[in-house]
Protein backbone atom coordinates (compact mmCIF):
# COMPACT_ATOMS: atom_id res chain seq x y z
CA UNK A 1 0.00 0.00 0.00
CA UNK A 2 2.77 2.38 1.01
CA UNK A 3 4.71 1.56 -2.15
CA UNK A 4 1.64 2.22 -4.30
CA UNK A 5 1.05 5.54 -2.57
CA UNK A 6 4.67 6.58 -2.97
CA UNK A 7 4.68 5.55 -6.62
CA UNK A 8 1.59 7.64 -7.27
CA UNK A 9 3.03 10.60 -5.40
CA UNK A 10 6.30 10.40 -7.33
CA UNK A 11 4.48 10.16 -10.66
CA UNK A 12 2.31 13.11 -9.61
CA UNK A 13 5.34 15.15 -8.58
CA UNK A 14 7.02 14.48 -11.94
CA UNK A 15 3.89 15.50 -13.84
CA UNK A 16 3.58 18.53 -11.57
CA UNK A 17 7.16 19.52 -12.36
CA UNK A 18 6.47 19.34 -16.09
CA UNK A 19 3.25 21.31 -15.65
CA UNK A 20 5.04 23.92 -13.53
CA UNK A 21 7.85 24.33 -16.08
CA UNK A 22 5.21 24.75 -18.77
CA UNK A 23 3.52 27.47 -16.72
CA UNK A 24 6.70 29.46 -16.21
CA UNK A 25 7.78 29.08 -19.85
CA UNK A 26 4.36 30.28 -21.04
CA UNK A 27 4.55 33.24 -18.67
CA UNK A 28 8.03 34.15 -19.91
CA UNK A 29 6.88 33.94 -23.52
CA UNK A 30 3.96 36.24 -22.73
CA UNK A 31 5.64 38.79 -20.51
CA UNK A 32 9.32 38.40 -21.38
CA UNK A 33 9.02 40.35 -24.58
CA UNK A 34 7.25 43.26 -22.89
CA UNK A 35 9.22 46.37 -21.95
CA UNK A 36 9.90 46.87 -18.27
CA UNK A 37 10.19 43.15 -17.55
CA UNK A 38 12.11 42.42 -14.37
CA UNK A 39 12.94 39.24 -12.51
CA UNK A 40 10.66 40.39 -9.67
CA UNK A 41 7.70 39.75 -11.96
CA UNK A 42 8.68 36.07 -11.92
CA UNK A 43 7.66 35.71 -8.28
CA UNK A 44 3.98 35.16 -9.10
CA UNK A 45 4.49 32.42 -11.71
CA UNK A 46 7.06 30.74 -9.47
CA UNK A 47 4.56 30.78 -6.60
CA UNK A 48 1.95 29.22 -8.93
CA UNK A 49 4.56 26.67 -10.10
CA UNK A 50 5.29 25.57 -6.53
CA UNK A 51 1.59 25.13 -5.84
CA UNK A 52 1.25 23.17 -9.07
CA UNK A 53 3.96 20.71 -8.05
CA UNK A 54 2.50 20.40 -4.55
CA UNK A 55 -1.05 19.73 -5.79
CA UNK A 56 0.09 17.20 -8.36
CA UNK A 57 2.16 15.43 -5.71
CA UNK A 58 -0.75 15.48 -3.27
CA UNK A 59 -3.27 14.08 -5.74
CA UNK A 60 -0.81 12.12 -7.89
CA UNK A 61 -1.74 8.73 -6.41
CA UNK A 62 -5.46 9.30 -7.01
CA UNK A 63 -4.81 10.52 -10.56
CA UNK A 64 -2.57 7.56 -11.38
CA UNK A 65 -4.84 4.84 -10.04
CA UNK A 66 -8.04 6.41 -11.38
CA UNK A 67 -6.33 6.64 -14.76
CA UNK A 68 -5.36 2.95 -14.55
CA UNK A 69 -8.90 2.00 -13.49
CA UNK A 70 -10.23 4.13 -16.35
CA UNK A 71 -7.91 2.34 -18.81
CA UNK A 72 -9.26 -1.04 -17.70
CA UNK A 73 -12.96 -0.07 -17.67
CA UNK A 74 -12.80 1.99 -20.84
CA UNK A 75 -10.90 -0.82 -22.58
CA UNK A 76 -13.47 -3.40 -21.47
CA UNK A 77 -16.29 -1.16 -22.60
CA UNK A 78 -14.72 -0.68 -26.02
CA UNK A 79 -14.18 -4.44 -26.33
CA UNK A 80 -17.81 -5.07 -25.40
CA UNK A 81 -18.98 -2.53 -27.95
CA UNK A 82 -16.91 -4.22 -30.63
CA UNK A 83 -18.16 -7.65 -29.57
CA UNK A 84 -21.76 -6.59 -29.71
CA UNK A 85 -21.15 -4.72 -32.96
CA UNK A 86 -23.39 -2.04 -31.53
CA UNK A 87 -22.76 1.69 -31.74
CA UNK A 88 -20.76 2.91 -28.79
CA UNK A 89 -22.64 4.84 -26.13
CA UNK A 90 -20.03 7.52 -26.66
CA UNK A 91 -20.83 7.71 -30.34
CA UNK A 92 -22.45 11.03 -30.89
CA UNK A 93 -25.20 11.62 -33.36
CA UNK A 94 -24.20 13.94 -36.15
Amino acid at each position, binding site marked *: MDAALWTGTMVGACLGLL*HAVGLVVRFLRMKGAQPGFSLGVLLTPLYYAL*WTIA*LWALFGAYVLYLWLL*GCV*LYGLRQLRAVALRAPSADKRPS
Partner: protein
Amino acid sequence: MSTVRRIGIIGAGVAGLTTAKTLVACGHDCTIFERGTRLGGVWAAGYSNFGLQVQRELYEFPDFPHAPETPDFTPGEQVQQYLERYARHFGVWPRIRFATRVSGLRRDEGTGWVLTLESAGAFREERFDFVVVCTGLFSNRPHLPAFPGEGEFQGELMHVSSLADRSRLAGKRVAVVGFGKSASDAALEAAAVAAQTTLIFRDVHWPVPTRLLGLLPFKWAMLNRLSSALLPPYYRPSRLERILHSLGYPLVWLWWRMVEGLLVLQFDLHSRGRSRLSLVPRLPIEFDAFGEAVMLPRPEFYRALRDGRVEPLQTEIDSFDANGVNLKNGRHLEADVVVLATGWESDHSWLDPATQTALGFEDDGLYLYRQMLPADVDGLAFIGYASTIASVLTYNLQAYWLAHVLDGALRLPSRGDMRADVAAQKRWKRKCMPFSRGRAARLLLHMQHYHDDLMKDMGLSPLRKRGPFAPFKEAFAPYQPSDYRNAISCDEAGELGLPKADPGATPSTTGGSVEVGRFPDHPAKA
Protein backbone atom coordinates in the same frame (compact mmCIF):
# COMPACT_ATOMS: atom_id res chain seq x y z
CA MET B 1 -9.78 57.54 -32.63
CA SER B 2 -13.22 56.02 -32.76
CA THR B 3 -15.85 57.69 -34.89
CA VAL B 4 -18.66 55.81 -33.21
CA ARG B 5 -20.73 58.20 -31.17
CA ARG B 6 -24.44 57.41 -31.36
CA ILE B 7 -25.25 53.82 -30.46
CA GLY B 8 -28.66 52.22 -30.68
CA ILE B 9 -29.28 49.30 -28.34
CA ILE B 10 -32.19 46.99 -29.04
CA GLY B 11 -33.67 45.44 -25.92
CA ALA B 12 -33.66 46.48 -22.25
CA GLY B 13 -32.93 43.09 -20.75
CA VAL B 14 -29.81 42.19 -18.82
CA ALA B 15 -27.60 42.47 -21.91
CA GLY B 16 -29.07 45.80 -23.04
CA LEU B 17 -28.74 47.38 -19.60
CA THR B 18 -25.13 46.34 -19.03
CA THR B 19 -24.17 47.32 -22.58
CA ALA B 20 -25.68 50.77 -22.15
CA LYS B 21 -24.07 51.26 -18.75
CA THR B 22 -20.64 50.28 -20.06
CA LEU B 23 -20.74 52.23 -23.32
CA VAL B 24 -22.15 55.35 -21.67
CA ALA B 25 -19.29 55.16 -19.15
CA CYS B 26 -16.94 55.24 -22.14
CA GLY B 27 -18.51 58.42 -23.45
CA HIS B 28 -20.88 57.03 -26.06
CA ASP B 29 -24.37 58.33 -26.55
CA CYS B 30 -26.64 55.31 -26.16
CA THR B 31 -30.36 54.91 -26.62
CA ILE B 32 -32.13 51.69 -25.64
CA PHE B 33 -35.30 50.63 -27.44
CA GLU B 34 -37.62 48.39 -25.47
CA ARG B 35 -40.85 47.14 -26.98
CA GLY B 36 -42.40 46.46 -23.57
CA THR B 37 -43.37 48.86 -20.85
CA ARG B 38 -41.04 47.30 -18.27
CA LEU B 39 -37.34 46.62 -18.45
CA GLY B 40 -35.83 43.22 -17.75
CA GLY B 41 -36.46 41.25 -20.94
CA VAL B 42 -37.39 37.69 -19.92
CA TRP B 43 -37.72 38.88 -16.32
CA ALA B 44 -40.36 41.49 -17.15
CA ALA B 45 -43.01 38.76 -17.29
CA GLY B 46 -42.97 35.02 -16.95
CA TYR B 47 -44.98 31.92 -16.33
CA SER B 48 -46.37 31.07 -12.93
CA ASN B 49 -43.68 30.66 -10.24
CA PHE B 50 -40.71 31.27 -12.57
CA GLY B 51 -37.33 32.24 -11.19
CA LEU B 52 -33.56 31.74 -11.28
CA GLN B 53 -32.23 28.24 -11.85
CA VAL B 54 -28.98 29.05 -10.08
CA GLN B 55 -27.81 30.50 -6.79
CA ARG B 56 -28.14 34.28 -6.68
CA GLU B 57 -24.37 34.90 -6.59
CA LEU B 58 -24.07 33.38 -10.07
CA TYR B 59 -26.65 35.75 -11.49
CA GLU B 60 -25.48 39.22 -10.56
CA PHE B 61 -23.50 42.07 -12.04
CA PRO B 62 -19.90 42.00 -10.76
CA ASP B 63 -20.15 45.66 -9.78
CA PHE B 64 -23.69 45.52 -8.38
CA PRO B 65 -24.21 42.57 -6.02
CA HIS B 66 -27.62 41.43 -4.88
CA ALA B 67 -28.97 42.75 -1.60
CA PRO B 68 -28.02 40.40 1.29
CA GLU B 69 -31.65 39.44 1.91
CA THR B 70 -32.16 38.18 -1.68
CA PRO B 71 -32.99 34.47 -1.59
CA ASP B 72 -31.17 31.86 -3.67
CA PHE B 73 -33.08 30.73 -6.78
CA THR B 74 -34.54 34.21 -6.72
CA PRO B 75 -38.14 34.57 -7.90
CA GLY B 76 -38.50 36.27 -11.29
CA GLU B 77 -40.22 39.38 -9.91
CA GLN B 78 -37.29 40.04 -7.56
CA VAL B 79 -34.81 39.63 -10.41
CA GLN B 80 -36.77 42.23 -12.38
CA GLN B 81 -36.63 44.61 -9.40
CA TYR B 82 -32.88 44.03 -9.12
CA LEU B 83 -32.49 45.02 -12.78
CA GLU B 84 -34.57 48.15 -12.19
CA ARG B 85 -32.29 49.12 -9.30
CA TYR B 86 -29.26 48.55 -11.55
CA ALA B 87 -30.71 50.75 -14.29
CA ARG B 88 -31.45 53.53 -11.81
CA HIS B 89 -28.10 53.25 -10.00
CA PHE B 90 -26.04 53.59 -13.17
CA GLY B 91 -28.27 56.18 -14.84
CA VAL B 92 -29.37 53.87 -17.63
CA TRP B 93 -33.10 54.34 -17.05
CA PRO B 94 -33.46 57.76 -18.76
CA ARG B 95 -31.91 56.29 -21.88
CA ILE B 96 -34.61 53.66 -22.32
CA ARG B 97 -37.46 54.36 -24.70
CA PHE B 98 -40.22 52.06 -23.57
CA ALA B 99 -43.04 50.80 -25.78
CA THR B 100 -40.85 51.39 -28.82
CA ARG B 101 -40.44 48.46 -31.14
CA VAL B 102 -37.64 48.26 -33.70
CA SER B 103 -39.49 47.13 -36.79
CA GLY B 104 -36.71 47.62 -39.30
CA LEU B 105 -32.96 48.01 -39.57
CA ARG B 106 -31.21 48.93 -42.79
CA ARG B 107 -27.80 50.15 -43.82
CA ASP B 108 -27.40 53.88 -44.14
CA GLU B 109 -25.56 55.34 -47.12
CA GLY B 110 -22.33 55.10 -45.15
CA THR B 111 -21.63 52.42 -42.58
CA GLY B 112 -24.22 53.57 -40.10
CA TRP B 113 -27.70 52.17 -39.65
CA VAL B 114 -31.22 53.48 -39.90
CA LEU B 115 -33.67 52.05 -37.39
CA THR B 116 -37.38 52.08 -38.10
CA LEU B 117 -39.15 52.63 -34.81
CA GLU B 118 -42.77 51.93 -34.05
CA SER B 119 -44.35 53.57 -31.06
CA ALA B 120 -48.07 53.98 -30.35
CA GLY B 121 -48.88 53.08 -33.94
CA ALA B 122 -46.59 55.73 -35.41
CA PHE B 123 -43.44 54.96 -37.38
CA ARG B 124 -40.30 57.03 -37.64
CA GLU B 125 -36.67 56.53 -38.54
CA GLU B 126 -33.50 57.31 -36.64
CA ARG B 127 -29.87 57.00 -37.61
CA PHE B 128 -27.10 55.43 -35.51
CA ASP B 129 -23.40 54.90 -36.04
CA PHE B 130 -23.47 51.52 -34.40
CA VAL B 131 -26.22 49.13 -33.35
CA VAL B 132 -26.04 46.54 -30.59
CA VAL B 133 -28.66 43.81 -30.70
CA CYS B 134 -29.48 42.70 -27.16
CA THR B 135 -32.61 40.69 -27.80
CA GLY B 136 -31.22 37.35 -26.62
CA LEU B 137 -31.26 34.02 -28.36
CA PHE B 138 -34.92 33.93 -29.18
CA SER B 139 -37.73 36.36 -29.86
CA ASN B 140 -40.95 36.58 -27.88
CA ARG B 141 -42.62 34.33 -30.47
CA PRO B 142 -43.33 30.94 -28.89
CA HIS B 143 -42.23 27.85 -30.77
CA LEU B 144 -45.53 26.06 -31.38
CA PRO B 145 -45.18 22.86 -33.39
CA ALA B 146 -48.17 22.15 -35.63
CA PHE B 147 -50.02 18.91 -34.92
CA PRO B 148 -52.62 17.17 -37.10
CA GLY B 149 -56.15 17.56 -35.75
CA GLU B 150 -55.21 20.52 -33.57
CA GLY B 151 -58.34 22.38 -34.63
CA GLU B 152 -60.62 19.58 -33.43
CA PHE B 153 -59.29 19.69 -29.88
CA GLN B 154 -62.08 20.88 -27.54
CA GLY B 155 -59.69 21.66 -24.69
CA GLU B 156 -57.15 24.45 -24.30
CA LEU B 157 -53.81 24.39 -26.11
CA MET B 158 -51.31 26.91 -24.75
CA HIS B 159 -47.64 27.79 -24.69
CA VAL B 160 -46.02 27.70 -21.27
CA SER B 161 -45.44 31.46 -21.43
CA SER B 162 -49.23 31.95 -21.20
CA LEU B 163 -49.37 30.07 -17.94
CA ALA B 164 -49.21 33.11 -15.70
CA ASP B 165 -51.57 31.68 -13.08
CA ARG B 166 -51.88 28.01 -12.18
CA SER B 167 -55.47 28.40 -11.01
CA ARG B 168 -56.60 27.98 -14.62
CA LEU B 169 -55.36 24.36 -14.40
CA ALA B 170 -57.35 23.57 -11.25
CA GLY B 171 -59.29 20.32 -11.43
CA LYS B 172 -58.34 19.70 -15.06
CA ARG B 173 -56.48 16.93 -16.86
CA VAL B 174 -53.23 18.56 -17.93
CA ALA B 175 -50.61 17.35 -20.39
CA VAL B 176 -47.26 19.18 -20.46
CA VAL B 177 -44.99 18.70 -23.47
CA GLY B 178 -41.21 18.99 -23.05
CA PHE B 179 -38.43 18.11 -20.60
CA GLY B 180 -36.71 21.43 -19.98
CA LYS B 181 -36.84 23.73 -17.00
CA SER B 182 -40.11 25.38 -18.02
CA ALA B 183 -41.72 21.98 -18.66
CA SER B 184 -40.70 20.73 -15.22
CA ASP B 185 -41.95 23.94 -13.60
CA ALA B 186 -45.25 23.75 -15.48
CA ALA B 187 -45.70 20.09 -14.55
CA LEU B 188 -45.16 20.88 -10.87
CA GLU B 189 -47.55 23.81 -11.03
CA ALA B 190 -50.16 21.57 -12.63
CA ALA B 191 -49.54 18.74 -10.16
CA ALA B 192 -50.38 21.10 -7.31
CA VAL B 193 -53.91 21.85 -8.54
CA ALA B 194 -54.85 19.66 -11.52
CA ALA B 195 -56.86 16.44 -11.40
CA GLN B 196 -54.23 14.65 -13.50
CA THR B 197 -50.83 15.73 -14.82
CA THR B 198 -48.90 14.02 -17.60
CA LEU B 199 -45.48 14.97 -18.90
CA ILE B 200 -44.82 14.02 -22.53
CA PHE B 201 -41.23 14.11 -23.74
CA ARG B 202 -38.99 12.62 -26.41
CA ASP B 203 -35.81 12.22 -24.35
CA VAL B 204 -34.82 12.48 -20.74
CA HIS B 205 -31.82 14.63 -19.92
CA TRP B 206 -29.31 14.67 -17.11
CA PRO B 207 -30.49 16.88 -14.26
CA VAL B 208 -28.06 19.24 -12.59
CA PRO B 209 -28.57 19.16 -8.83
CA THR B 210 -28.53 22.36 -6.82
CA ARG B 211 -26.28 20.44 -4.39
CA LEU B 212 -24.28 17.38 -5.40
CA LEU B 213 -25.30 14.49 -3.11
CA GLY B 214 -27.30 17.09 -1.23
CA LEU B 215 -24.10 18.56 0.20
CA LEU B 216 -21.85 20.35 -2.27
CA PRO B 217 -23.36 23.31 -4.20
CA PHE B 218 -23.22 22.40 -7.89
CA LYS B 219 -20.99 25.37 -8.71
CA TRP B 220 -18.16 23.71 -6.77
CA ALA B 221 -18.39 20.65 -8.97
CA MET B 222 -19.13 22.25 -12.33
CA LEU B 223 -17.83 25.82 -12.48
CA ASN B 224 -14.16 25.50 -11.60
CA ARG B 225 -11.15 25.19 -13.87
CA LEU B 226 -10.66 21.51 -13.11
CA SER B 227 -14.13 20.57 -14.37
CA SER B 228 -13.71 22.96 -17.34
CA ALA B 229 -10.59 21.03 -18.33
CA LEU B 230 -12.45 17.73 -18.16
CA LEU B 231 -15.21 18.84 -20.55
CA PRO B 232 -14.92 17.82 -24.20
CA PRO B 233 -12.10 20.17 -25.23
CA TYR B 234 -12.75 23.77 -26.21
CA TYR B 235 -12.08 24.69 -29.83
CA ARG B 236 -8.74 26.19 -28.84
CA PRO B 237 -7.62 23.84 -26.07
CA SER B 238 -4.59 24.44 -23.89
CA ARG B 239 -1.69 22.01 -24.07
CA LEU B 240 -2.73 20.44 -20.78
CA GLU B 241 -6.27 19.90 -22.10
CA ARG B 242 -4.90 18.31 -25.26
CA ILE B 243 -2.84 15.84 -23.20
CA LEU B 244 -5.75 15.20 -20.84
CA HIS B 245 -8.08 14.35 -23.72
CA SER B 246 -5.62 12.10 -25.54
CA LEU B 247 -3.25 10.18 -23.25
CA GLY B 248 -5.37 10.99 -20.19
CA TYR B 249 -8.73 10.20 -21.79
CA PRO B 250 -9.47 7.09 -19.64
CA LEU B 251 -9.32 9.34 -16.58
CA VAL B 252 -11.68 11.88 -18.18
CA TRP B 253 -14.03 9.10 -19.27
CA LEU B 254 -14.07 7.60 -15.77
CA TRP B 255 -14.69 11.01 -14.21
CA TRP B 256 -17.88 11.56 -16.21
CA ARG B 257 -19.09 8.00 -15.56
CA MET B 258 -18.61 8.67 -11.83
CA VAL B 259 -20.57 11.93 -12.17
CA GLU B 260 -23.36 10.03 -13.95
CA GLY B 261 -23.32 7.42 -11.18
CA LEU B 262 -23.66 10.11 -8.52
CA LEU B 263 -26.61 11.70 -10.34
CA VAL B 264 -28.35 8.34 -10.80
CA LEU B 265 -27.90 7.76 -7.07
CA GLN B 266 -28.97 11.24 -6.01
CA PHE B 267 -32.07 11.49 -8.22
CA ASP B 268 -32.81 7.76 -8.00
CA LEU B 269 -33.05 7.67 -11.80
CA HIS B 270 -33.01 3.86 -11.95
CA SER B 271 -36.05 3.60 -9.71
CA ARG B 272 -38.83 3.23 -12.21
CA GLY B 273 -41.60 4.42 -9.89
CA ARG B 274 -45.24 3.91 -10.73
CA SER B 275 -44.72 4.64 -14.40
CA ARG B 276 -42.13 1.83 -14.84
CA LEU B 277 -40.10 4.29 -16.91
CA SER B 278 -36.33 4.57 -16.49
CA LEU B 279 -35.21 8.16 -16.19
CA VAL B 280 -31.56 7.45 -17.01
CA PRO B 281 -30.66 9.52 -20.10
CA ARG B 282 -29.37 7.81 -23.23
CA LEU B 283 -26.61 10.29 -24.06
CA PRO B 284 -23.38 10.64 -22.06
CA ILE B 285 -23.56 13.58 -19.68
CA GLU B 286 -20.59 15.44 -21.16
CA PHE B 287 -22.50 15.62 -24.47
CA ASP B 288 -26.06 15.94 -23.16
CA ALA B 289 -25.01 18.85 -20.92
CA PHE B 290 -24.76 21.05 -24.02
CA GLY B 291 -28.25 20.32 -25.30
CA GLU B 292 -31.31 22.51 -25.26
CA ALA B 293 -32.86 21.11 -22.12
CA VAL B 294 -30.21 21.62 -19.46
CA MET B 295 -31.88 22.23 -16.16
CA LEU B 296 -31.59 22.43 -12.45
CA PRO B 297 -34.93 20.91 -11.55
CA ARG B 298 -36.74 21.80 -8.39
CA PRO B 299 -35.99 18.98 -5.91
CA GLU B 300 -39.61 17.78 -5.90
CA PHE B 301 -39.71 17.30 -9.69
CA TYR B 302 -38.18 13.82 -9.72
CA ARG B 303 -40.14 12.87 -6.61
CA ALA B 304 -43.34 13.87 -8.41
CA LEU B 305 -42.36 11.71 -11.41
CA ARG B 306 -41.70 8.72 -9.18
CA ASP B 307 -44.72 8.95 -6.90
CA GLY B 308 -47.11 9.42 -9.79
CA ARG B 309 -48.20 13.02 -9.14
CA VAL B 310 -46.77 13.63 -12.60
CA GLU B 311 -47.03 10.72 -15.03
CA PRO B 312 -44.03 10.62 -17.37
CA LEU B 313 -44.59 9.39 -20.91
CA GLN B 314 -41.55 9.05 -23.15
CA THR B 315 -43.14 9.45 -26.55
CA GLU B 316 -44.35 12.16 -28.92
CA ILE B 317 -47.72 13.62 -29.84
CA ASP B 318 -48.97 12.12 -33.08
CA SER B 319 -52.21 14.05 -33.43
CA PHE B 320 -55.02 15.74 -31.55
CA ASP B 321 -58.67 14.79 -31.43
CA ALA B 322 -61.63 16.33 -29.65
CA ASN B 323 -60.86 14.79 -26.24
CA GLY B 324 -57.09 14.82 -26.10
CA VAL B 325 -53.99 13.60 -27.88
CA ASN B 326 -53.01 10.46 -29.74
CA LEU B 327 -49.47 9.50 -28.85
CA LYS B 328 -46.90 7.82 -31.08
CA ASN B 329 -46.74 4.87 -28.69
CA GLY B 330 -50.34 4.10 -29.65
CA ARG B 331 -51.93 5.39 -26.48
CA HIS B 332 -54.72 7.97 -26.39
CA LEU B 333 -54.39 10.53 -23.60
CA GLU B 334 -57.48 12.44 -22.53
CA ALA B 335 -56.68 16.03 -21.66
CA ASP B 336 -58.45 19.31 -20.96
CA VAL B 337 -55.33 21.46 -21.23
CA VAL B 338 -52.14 20.83 -23.22
CA VAL B 339 -49.20 23.04 -22.23
CA LEU B 340 -46.40 23.26 -24.80
CA ALA B 341 -43.06 23.94 -23.10
CA THR B 342 -41.35 23.79 -26.47
CA GLY B 343 -39.23 26.92 -26.39
CA TRP B 344 -39.18 30.00 -28.56
CA GLU B 345 -38.64 30.97 -32.19
CA SER B 346 -35.89 33.21 -33.45
CA ASP B 347 -37.18 36.22 -35.35
CA HIS B 348 -34.82 38.46 -37.25
CA SER B 349 -37.31 39.53 -39.89
CA TRP B 350 -36.79 43.15 -38.83
CA LEU B 351 -33.29 43.06 -40.34
CA ASP B 352 -33.21 44.03 -43.98
CA PRO B 353 -32.72 41.08 -46.38
CA ALA B 354 -29.17 42.09 -47.39
CA THR B 355 -28.06 42.16 -43.76
CA GLN B 356 -29.76 38.85 -43.02
CA THR B 357 -27.88 37.28 -45.92
CA ALA B 358 -24.56 38.78 -44.86
CA LEU B 359 -25.05 37.58 -41.28
CA GLY B 360 -25.60 34.03 -42.49
CA PHE B 361 -28.27 32.61 -40.19
CA GLU B 362 -28.19 28.81 -40.03
CA ASP B 363 -30.53 26.16 -38.63
CA ASP B 364 -28.60 26.13 -35.38
CA GLY B 365 -28.32 29.89 -35.02
CA LEU B 366 -25.92 32.68 -35.84
CA TYR B 367 -22.19 32.08 -35.54
CA LEU B 368 -20.31 35.20 -34.50
CA TYR B 369 -16.73 36.17 -33.75
CA ARG B 370 -16.36 35.95 -29.95
CA GLN B 371 -20.13 35.37 -29.88
CA MET B 372 -20.57 39.07 -30.67
CA LEU B 373 -19.36 40.32 -34.00
CA PRO B 374 -20.41 39.20 -37.47
CA ALA B 375 -17.26 38.84 -39.54
CA ASP B 376 -18.86 40.34 -42.65
CA VAL B 377 -21.09 43.11 -41.29
CA ASP B 378 -19.58 46.26 -39.83
CA GLY B 379 -21.24 48.48 -37.28
CA LEU B 380 -23.37 45.74 -35.75
CA ALA B 381 -22.81 43.66 -32.62
CA PHE B 382 -24.82 41.10 -30.67
CA ILE B 383 -24.54 41.11 -26.91
CA GLY B 384 -26.44 38.47 -24.99
CA TYR B 385 -26.23 35.97 -27.83
CA ALA B 386 -24.35 33.54 -25.61
CA SER B 387 -25.85 30.96 -23.35
CA THR B 388 -23.82 30.40 -20.18
CA ILE B 389 -24.49 29.42 -16.57
CA ALA B 390 -23.62 32.93 -15.31
CA SER B 391 -25.10 34.94 -18.15
CA VAL B 392 -25.12 38.31 -16.36
CA LEU B 393 -21.36 38.08 -15.93
CA THR B 394 -20.92 36.95 -19.52
CA TYR B 395 -22.90 39.88 -20.92
CA ASN B 396 -21.01 42.26 -18.65
CA LEU B 397 -17.67 41.02 -19.97
CA GLN B 398 -18.99 41.14 -23.53
CA ALA B 399 -19.98 44.77 -23.04
CA TYR B 400 -16.48 45.62 -21.77
CA TRP B 401 -14.92 43.78 -24.67
CA LEU B 402 -17.09 45.72 -27.12
CA ALA B 403 -16.18 48.99 -25.38
CA HIS B 404 -12.51 48.12 -25.93
CA VAL B 405 -13.19 47.49 -29.62
CA LEU B 406 -15.13 50.73 -30.09
CA ASP B 407 -12.50 52.78 -28.32
CA GLY B 408 -9.64 51.29 -30.27
CA ALA B 409 -8.08 49.68 -27.19
CA LEU B 410 -8.57 46.27 -28.78
CA ARG B 411 -7.54 45.67 -32.35
CA LEU B 412 -9.67 43.12 -34.14
CA PRO B 413 -8.02 40.45 -36.27
CA SER B 414 -8.40 40.62 -40.03
CA ARG B 415 -11.73 39.70 -41.54
CA GLY B 416 -10.22 36.44 -42.83
CA ASP B 417 -8.93 35.49 -39.37
CA MET B 418 -12.33 36.27 -37.86
CA ARG B 419 -14.02 34.06 -40.45
CA ALA B 420 -11.53 31.26 -39.74
CA ASP B 421 -12.17 31.53 -35.99
CA VAL B 422 -15.94 31.42 -36.54
CA ALA B 423 -15.55 28.37 -38.80
CA ALA B 424 -13.44 26.57 -36.17
CA GLN B 425 -16.01 27.39 -33.51
CA LYS B 426 -18.79 26.08 -35.75
CA ARG B 427 -16.98 22.78 -36.39
CA TRP B 428 -16.35 22.36 -32.68
CA LYS B 429 -19.93 23.00 -31.63
CA ARG B 430 -21.35 20.70 -34.28
CA LYS B 431 -19.04 17.92 -33.11
CA CYS B 432 -19.40 18.35 -29.35
CA MET B 433 -22.96 19.62 -28.85
CA PRO B 434 -26.28 18.08 -29.83
CA PHE B 435 -28.39 19.99 -32.34
CA SER B 436 -30.57 22.76 -31.01
CA ARG B 437 -31.90 25.94 -32.57
CA GLY B 438 -29.59 27.93 -30.32
CA ARG B 439 -26.45 25.79 -30.62
CA ALA B 440 -24.45 28.67 -32.14
CA ALA B 441 -24.90 30.60 -28.91
CA ARG B 442 -24.29 27.68 -26.55
CA LEU B 443 -21.32 27.75 -24.20
CA LEU B 444 -22.83 26.71 -20.87
CA LEU B 445 -20.11 24.96 -18.86
CA HIS B 446 -17.48 26.17 -21.34
CA MET B 447 -18.11 29.72 -20.14
CA GLN B 448 -14.80 29.75 -18.27
CA HIS B 449 -12.92 29.24 -21.53
CA TYR B 450 -14.95 32.00 -23.17
CA HIS B 451 -14.47 34.45 -20.30
CA ASP B 452 -10.72 33.72 -20.42
CA ASP B 453 -10.72 34.55 -24.14
CA LEU B 454 -12.40 37.89 -23.51
CA MET B 455 -10.06 38.78 -20.64
CA LYS B 456 -6.96 37.90 -22.68
CA ASP B 457 -8.24 39.92 -25.63
CA MET B 458 -8.57 42.92 -23.33
CA GLY B 459 -5.02 42.42 -22.04
CA LEU B 460 -6.24 41.33 -18.60
CA SER B 461 -5.21 38.27 -16.66
CA PRO B 462 -7.83 35.52 -16.86
CA LEU B 463 -6.70 34.36 -13.41
CA ARG B 464 -8.97 36.29 -11.07
CA LYS B 465 -8.52 34.50 -7.77
CA ARG B 466 -6.68 36.45 -5.10
CA GLY B 467 -4.87 35.73 -1.82
CA PRO B 468 -2.20 33.26 -0.74
CA PHE B 469 -4.36 30.29 -1.75
CA ALA B 470 -5.09 31.71 -5.21
CA PRO B 471 -3.38 28.83 -7.11
CA PHE B 472 -5.45 26.29 -5.19
CA LYS B 473 -8.64 28.31 -5.74
CA GLU B 474 -7.85 28.62 -9.45
CA ALA B 475 -8.05 24.85 -9.77
CA PHE B 476 -10.86 23.96 -7.42
CA ALA B 477 -12.98 26.99 -6.45
CA PRO B 478 -15.94 28.00 -8.61
CA TYR B 479 -15.71 31.07 -10.79
CA GLN B 480 -18.50 33.59 -10.31
CA PRO B 481 -19.23 37.28 -11.00
CA SER B 482 -17.61 38.54 -7.79
CA ASP B 483 -14.24 37.25 -9.07
CA TYR B 484 -14.36 39.89 -11.81
CA ARG B 485 -15.24 42.77 -9.51
CA ASN B 486 -11.62 43.99 -9.49
CA ALA B 487 -11.43 44.03 -13.28
CA ILE B 488 -14.64 46.00 -13.62
CA SER B 489 -13.65 48.40 -10.83
CA CYS B 490 -10.25 48.97 -12.43
CA ASP B 491 -11.94 49.78 -15.64
CA GLU B 492 -14.23 52.30 -14.03
CA ALA B 493 -11.18 54.01 -12.60
CA GLY B 494 -9.86 54.36 -16.12
CA GLU B 495 -6.80 52.18 -15.49
CA LEU B 496 -7.35 50.21 -18.64
CA GLY B 497 -7.34 53.26 -20.83
CA LEU B 498 -11.06 53.45 -21.37
CA PRO B 499 -12.54 56.93 -21.11
CA LYS B 500 -14.23 57.72 -17.82
CA ALA B 501 -17.93 58.29 -17.61
CA ASP B 502 -19.17 61.75 -18.41
CA PRO B 503 -21.68 62.41 -15.65
CA GLY B 504 -23.05 65.36 -17.56
CA ALA B 505 -23.83 63.34 -20.68
CA THR B 506 -27.49 63.16 -21.48
CA PRO B 507 -29.17 60.79 -23.84
CA SER B 508 -30.18 62.26 -27.15
CA THR B 509 -33.77 61.78 -28.12
CA THR B 510 -33.54 62.85 -31.72
CA GLY B 511 -31.42 61.87 -34.63
CA GLY B 512 -28.45 64.00 -35.57
CA SER B 513 -25.67 64.37 -38.04
CA VAL B 514 -22.63 62.47 -36.88
CA GLU B 515 -19.54 60.91 -38.36
CA VAL B 516 -19.98 57.61 -40.08
CA GLY B 517 -19.15 54.77 -37.69
CA ARG B 518 -17.07 51.69 -38.41
CA PHE B 519 -14.97 49.35 -36.38
CA PRO B 520 -11.87 51.28 -35.46
CA ASP B 521 -8.65 49.83 -36.85
CA HIS B 522 -10.47 47.10 -38.68
CA PRO B 523 -7.77 46.00 -41.12
CA ALA B 524 -10.27 45.13 -43.79
CA LYS B 525 -11.71 48.61 -43.66
CA ALA B 526 -8.64 50.63 -42.77
